[in-house]
């Protein structure tokens, strides 16, 4: 059941009605309904994986309590590592086993030892990377005594399985979501209205921008060997907007839906393509994952303590791991590595936190410099996206090479029966709207919101791509 499906359009009002009109007596009844709805939502993909989700939830719930109750360090450590190993074990088996088996066998073959890997025929459970990280952060926080263990299983289950964030985040923190889950929610008109705006804008991003860009990006990436330089450049730009529209659109819908139930989720995107350097980009892109890696990997590794070398080492580790988190493929690892390389000059100049303020433009030299920085950051991000999108690293390198060697900058007719340039105007308009609203969560709220809402609905209906339906990209992670 996707957020942009008819099934969800039926599911959401039913749950909304039951939540506020039938199960509204106490926070327990509210939570119980949301749990049932979440498990139903999840089982729409594959009911068999519901058991895995419930097991994972119970494991973290139980180990969390045992860690807190543990009298000795040894006991606490035991329960802590049990949770970590089982969680990562599931992730490893379902997501990474085949990749490691294949890579190891290829390595052996390359040194002349014949080996054929034993592969598992497993389907990746949807959302496993997200709910595993929910559970991990909870257990780690209890172990380091940052939070208290949750003793109410229903409340804890809701924190892990809450349907708006279950399959593709944002990756929530116990400190943020659990306190909200523990009190009865009262309906707020303003919050619900904000939610509607965010849902509508998320749909614009998904069906108008992402899915339309996907049609073009696919036609270019899938036939890159016959594309000219101009098409290849556009292909990378289209993919950049596809993945942004897709994932931030999903996050907007998730946040908006959650607001309808009176729960605030962590913001996941903050206009990342308006970043002035790559550090700022990563403070604005998939914020819940970046901050997760910062808090649970970078800082435990020593963070920036221990000098420049440690800082560089830890930066490379979190980016490569972050790339690997996205999928079991060398292309994701390369994508993470490239982003770490982009970080290097900032680390060497100690300027990775220099662009923390809001971007203001006026008619002066500094503004020109800012614009150039934004364009440069977008450009290098697009180069990294080529690795993310390509099927193999070789494909990515050949794609890049062809941009420079083909040198034909003419308009090309693509195999999706469209010209490669046709989408530029729509993207330009989208960028302009986002730029003018970059201090807000979404562009619909504010003055003349009804007109803007009507225009957004019109855009979804008129410009949305519906016949060539595409799943949300991050569901596969």
């Amino acid at each position: 059941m996707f957020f942009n499906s008819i099934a969800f359009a039926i599911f959401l009002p039913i749950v909304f009605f039951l939540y506020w009109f039938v199960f509204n007596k106490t926070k327990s009844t509210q939570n119980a309904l949301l749990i049932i709805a979440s498990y139903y939502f999840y089982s729409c993909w594959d009911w068999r994986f519901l058991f895995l989700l419930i097991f994972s939830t119970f494991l973290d719930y139980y180990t969390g309590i045992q860690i807190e109750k543990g009298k000795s360090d040894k006991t606490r450590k035991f329960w802590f590592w049990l949770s970590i190993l089982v969680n990562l074990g599931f992730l490893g088996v379902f997501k990474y086993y085949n990749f490691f088996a294949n890579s190891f066998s290829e390595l052996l073959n390359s040194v002349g030892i014949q080996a054929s890997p034993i592969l598992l025929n497993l389907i990746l459970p949807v959302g496993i990377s997200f709910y595993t990280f929910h559970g991990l952060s909870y257990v780690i926080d209890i172990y380091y005594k940052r939070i208290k263990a949750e003793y109410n299983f229903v409340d804890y289950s809701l924190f892990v399985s809450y349907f708006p964030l279950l399959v593709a985040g944002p990756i929530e923190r116990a400190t943020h979501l659990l306190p909200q889950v523990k009190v009865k929610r009262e309906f707020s008109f303003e919050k619900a209205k904000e939610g509607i705006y965010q849902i509508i804008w998320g749909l614009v991003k998904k069906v108008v921008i992402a899915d339309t860009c996907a049609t073009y990006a696919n036609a270019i990436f899938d036939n890159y060997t016959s594309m000219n330089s101009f098409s290849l450049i556009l292909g990378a730009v289209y993919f950049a907007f596809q993945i942004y529209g897709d994932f931030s659109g999903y996050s907007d819908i998730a946040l908006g839906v959650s607001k309808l139930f009176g729960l605030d989720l962590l913001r996941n995107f903050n206009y990342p393509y308006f970043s002035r350097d790559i550090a700022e980009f990563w403070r604005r892109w998939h914020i819940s994952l970046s901050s997760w890696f910062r808090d649970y990997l970078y800082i435990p590794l020593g963070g920036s303590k221990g000098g420049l070398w440690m800082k560089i080492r830890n930066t490379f580790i979190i980016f490569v791991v972050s790339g690997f988190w996205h999928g079991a493929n060398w292309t994701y690892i390369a994508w993470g590595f490239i982003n770490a390389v982009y970080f290097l000059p900032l680390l060497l100049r100690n300027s990775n936190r220099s662009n923390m303020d809001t971007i203001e433009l006026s008619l002066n030299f500094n503004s020109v410099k800012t614009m150039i920085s934004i364009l440069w950051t977008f450009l290098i991000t697009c180069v990294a996206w080529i690795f993310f999108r390509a099927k193999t690293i070789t494909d990515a390198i050949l794609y890049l090479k062809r941009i420079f060697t083909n040198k034909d900058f003419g308009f090309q007719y693509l195999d999706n029966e469209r010209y490669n340039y046709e989408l530029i105007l729509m993207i330009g308009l989208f960028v302009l709207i986002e730029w003018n609203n970059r201090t807000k969560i979404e562009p619909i709220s504010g003055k003349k919101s009804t007109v803007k809402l009507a225009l957004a609905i019109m855009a979804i209906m008129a410009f949305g791509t519906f016949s060539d339906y595409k799943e949300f990209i991050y569901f596969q992670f």
Partner: protein
Amino acid sequence: MKRFLIYTAKILLITVLIAVVMDGLYNYVFLQSKNRGKIETVFNSKPQNYDVVILGSSRANNHFVSKMFEDKGLKTFNYGMSGGHLFEASLMLKLMIEKKYTIKNVILEADLNLSNDKESDGVSAKFLPYIHNSEIIKEHFENQENFNELYYIPFYRYIKYDGKIGFRETGKIIMGEKTNALDNLGYYPLVKHKNGNMKNNIVNLNPLKHNKYYEEIKKICKEKNIAFIAVMTPMCENVKGMNYFDKVKKVYPEIHNYENVVVENKYFSSCGHMNDAGSKIFTARILKDFFNK
């Protein structure tokens, strides 16, 4: 909560209003379309007189050279539609009758397309803008699974088939952008010989015993006194399951088998589609056999 419910109702109302307005707007634009495709052209045309009308899929569109008919003094148009099934061919003929076309002969390419009587989404979508303007189109779609949504939900058909009749197509009509669908009197010559694409497997294909739309075309022709010529058109040599054409002949003895009139690969662009040279040989044979008076 009451405020929110009223607010949600307002949004729904705005959505419905937008859908109705856009439906009307798109419909108006499609009613002006004259040079984009065969369906739009027929729908927006005045009554015509034809000696020969050619119907079928791409195997009609690419195989019957209309000009060769014209050279013989026969006013002809090739209404074969790439990707189309007999569902669309039948509707096209019905639409012509509704638009008061006078037709003496219908040549129907009836071979591979006899194996199903389903609609071809990509082609049938082009009729949908006119579903409220034509009883014939409405009736033809009435038995389709999603008829109610297509007919009663405003703008739904433009959303569902956005790739075919969405804003890009609407925009192109407004801009007066022409396609090549109507060039060469509807015949689309294939010139490129793609090496290595000269094989096909139709072993699992079987003609339906009673193809609803084939029978419908036959019936219309009989009622309107139109001479009905059904033909099977050539395929390349390297086809697995070539006995399909014999199976067709068994079920529909009136269909003329021209499958092996052209066989050499040099006359094909792909296994199921002849190039221009092959189509000329084939058309010459059709002219000789049916119009040599």
